[in-house]
């Protein structure tokens, strides 16, 4: 053979580097996926931080219907409903919708709401100035709360979108959340007297 073991070693080393690189690439797909979805909005995720509203851009010629769906993940005991099922908004105007939660369980629970917009492209144009979904929410046993969400629709919303759905799923994150006292719920109402 014309080839020496040094040649084998060199090529093997290069291939092993490719293998390690591809293993890293598998994990790099995670942030890449998030960045890609942030830019394109194609997975229906909304921004995780508050948007700042600029006045004077209200487009009264268009009406967009926004529908709200609330659900709780399996194993999550809270009651969770929206104040209204759908509202009609003009692009640019700020609206506030409240969501009702109650913890019927005998233990304290910390929740995280995850939004999802359908069709996904609309997520890029939904700007929330305030949302309970930006933080974890804690409720002690029997407590209830009305949690507000303020938003406006960007006037640049494509013409063909006249209707979109905003869904919140409530997850029980008590196990992985910080201490309950660190998560005092700002929207808390005192338990109704006479309830358990």
């Amino acid at each position, binding site marked *: 053979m014309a080839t020496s073991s040094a040649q084998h070693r060199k*090529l093997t080393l290069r291939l092993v580097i*490719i293998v390690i690189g591809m293993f890293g690439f598998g*994990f790099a797909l995670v942030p890449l996926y998030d960045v890609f979805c942030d830019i394109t909005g194609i997975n229906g995720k909304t921004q995780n931080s508050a948007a700042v509203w600029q006045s004077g851009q209200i487009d009264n010629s268009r009406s967009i219907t926004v529908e709200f769906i609330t659900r709780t993940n399996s194993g999550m005991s809270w009651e969770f409903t929206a104040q209204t099922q759908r509202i009609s908004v003009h692009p640019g105007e700020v609206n506030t919708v409240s969501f009702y939660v109650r913890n019927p369980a005998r233990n304290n629970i910390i929740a*995280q709401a995850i939004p999802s917009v359908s069709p996904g492209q609309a997520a890029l144009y939904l700007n929330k100035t305030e949302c309970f979904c930006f933080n974890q929410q804690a409720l002690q046993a029997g407590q209830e709360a009305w949690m507000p969400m303020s938003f406006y629709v960007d006037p640049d919303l494509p013409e063909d979108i006249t209707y979109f759905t905003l869904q919140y799923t409530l*997850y029980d*994150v008590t196990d992985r959340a910080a201490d309950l006292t660190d998560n005092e719920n700002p929207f808390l109402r005192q338990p109704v007297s006479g309830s358990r």
Partner: protein
Amino acid sequence: MTKATETLVPDHASAHQDHHHGAPKGIMRWLLTTNHKDIGTLYLWFAFIMFLVGGAMAMVIRAELFQPGLQIVDPNFFNQMTTVHGLIMVFGAVMPAFTGLANWLIPMMIGAPDMALPRMNNWSFWILPFAFAILLGSLFVEGGGPAFGWTFYAPLSTTYSSDSTALFVFSVHIMGISSIMGAINVIVTIFNMRAPGMSWMKMPLFVWTWLITAFLLIAVMPVLAGAVTMVLTDKFFGTSFFDAAGGGDPVMFQHIFWFFGHPEVYIMILPAFGIISQIVPTFARKPLFGYASMVYATASIALLSFIVWAHHMFTTGMPVFAEMFFMFATMLISVPTGVKVFNWVATMWRGAMTFEIPMLFALAFIVLFTIGGLSGLMLAITPVDFQYHDTYFVVAHFHYVLVTGAVFSIMAAVYYWLPKWTGKMFNITLAKWHFWCSLISVNVLFFPMHFVGLAGMPRRIPDYSLQFADYNQWISIGGFAFGLSQLIFLTLVIKACKKQGEPVSDRVWEGAQGLEWEIPSPAPYHTFETPPVVK
């Protein structure tokens, strides 16, 4: 190009082999072997045993589905059977069988004395039995084995799986390491150990397709390892790669999995293309039509395989432009695949054809694989995929390309090269029985699945609506017949390994071309210690 094989084997080479030591004796021969032929044999036997084990699981599935309603196994065990059947057939049967063929044939085809990294070769085989012992063992632990489908979608494999998922993850890691080591070995061997004169465009197509497959393997097996690692940490260590509550996304699992999964599909079919491209010219007695276009088509299929993964995910709510992109990219693959099929047909055109057993399997491959390819084209069409998704139509599609495609090509390869390996012709009567029983039963088994799928029967469910009952009985009968037919194959291979049968010539088949037919039959334990000169 088969004219590459006009060779000069030095006279002293054969004389030298006679007084060289032969194979050592006993079990240590197999445990410690670094001989590419021994390791090839180990891989092939391991794949055959796994084929029978995975097949037995398919028999359980078909027995349960013989009638509507639940009668034989409970749904959780049914799910374990579909899951482990898939994992074993993909990682335990088809891939090791191709690696076994690569070990046996690539050094003989390129005129090398052995694989480039023989000790690693030993390791890459011997960790495999442990991987599958762990996977099969997980079926017997409390809570049962993996029951989330071979695709292990999160959250089925994270939130809703049993604790044995850790065993599943560990075994997939070992399988992945084994495949990667095998692939590295193939690449180094082909790059560094070709005989003088064996230029790139003189390499037999089986070598070419395996080289490209090996690059696919080292590119995507690490991604699979990453995906199972994320499942492991999500399930046991509190990470949230795929958990929306912690900021992850379950749909991302499908993207990562299918980024591995689609190239994986071609890992299981490209070596098959190579095998068919060796067999058809032999029995048509003509050189392969369009050798260069075959090489380029194989490379194109491999490259395209990286940009089509989301066609498995049309129903996850992708935007229309993404669905259009993946639809057209997928359809584009049928162009190089069509080039291959037409080249095989053109090779046979006006050839002096004979129909020995390997050729029968190769012809069955060309026809039936094309049926599977065509149903794949139907599935690529986004709007109709919404109807076909997760139905038996999909099951029919991938069994046509994997059973009558990949598995038939492996059987064709075994019949084609077995006489070279053993020095004796196999029992032709048994082989004919095996071929015709398999051919008829496999179509009774998989063809009606198209119909029940189009009618809406979902896959991976142990029960079904009454209107599917008749077809499912036919499918099950076909399944049992196909399973039993493989026992004929087992008998034949055992007889061949006991060296029963008529001695064969060095060339074995009249029209066979290539370096592996220049050496004696049976192939000596050591070949090409002095490299041949390829003109």
